[in-house]
């Protein structure tokens, strides 16, 4: 079993819809949770990161962490064609010196249909 599981998609939704992207994990030691967006032929771009359980909002994006269920989500409201990209979740546990254990999901490819 992988430490981080992410549905690869592809996921296609109409413009304006609410998008829900999810990851599950097995390592309860993970402390920090990140979402990256990667456009084709580009590097991953950090969207948001959170530490505690609960919600964190940034514009049209909301990150949700449920540590009891080992489940994280990224919601995109009012989705736009420019949101079409691959979304990667990542999780980190600090082992005493920086990001000593950082694990990425495999990414979900999202397409917003105009």
């Amino acid at each position: 079993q992988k430490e981080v599981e992410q549905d690869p998609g592809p996921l296609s939704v109409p413009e304006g819809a609410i998008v829900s992207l999810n990851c599950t994990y097995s390592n309860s030691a993970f402390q920090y949770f990140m979402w990256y967006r990667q456009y084709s032929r580009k590097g991953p771009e950090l969207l948001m990161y959170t530490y505690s359980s609960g919600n964190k909002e940034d514009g049209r994006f909301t990150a949700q962490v449920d540590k009891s269920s080992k489940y994280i989500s990224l919601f995109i409201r009012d989705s736009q064609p420019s949101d079409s990209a691959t979304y990667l979740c990542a999780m980190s546990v600090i082992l005493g010196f920086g990001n000593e254990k950082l694990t990425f999901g495999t990414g979900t490819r999202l397409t917003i249909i105009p």
Partner: protein
Amino acid sequence: EAGVTQSPTHLIKTRGQQVTLRCSPISGHTSVYWYQQALGLGLQFLLWYDEGEERNRGNFPPRFSGRQFPNYSSELNVNALELEDSALYLCASSLGEGQGDFSPLHFGNGTRLTVT
């Protein structure tokens, strides 16, 4: 603020050759990470440097090596290239030890290496 920069953007090499990839971190970041992103395999951790020293290494053979310079820029070297080394090589940087409890990685746009 300039982001992480990588060079070259694209590279085509022949099997058995050697290649050097370069990375400049965000100003103020002392940690540099290298990842391999092969088609369908996700991000695979290669190497982590901080303050000029190798701090951790992923599950890759010794022909993958690198170094970090005093200005915190970094090189990734791959010797005896194999066809399966074809991938996007990503460099990322973050704040190092003593600069905060947590510093997420910021990535460059990568070097796309094709081995024929």
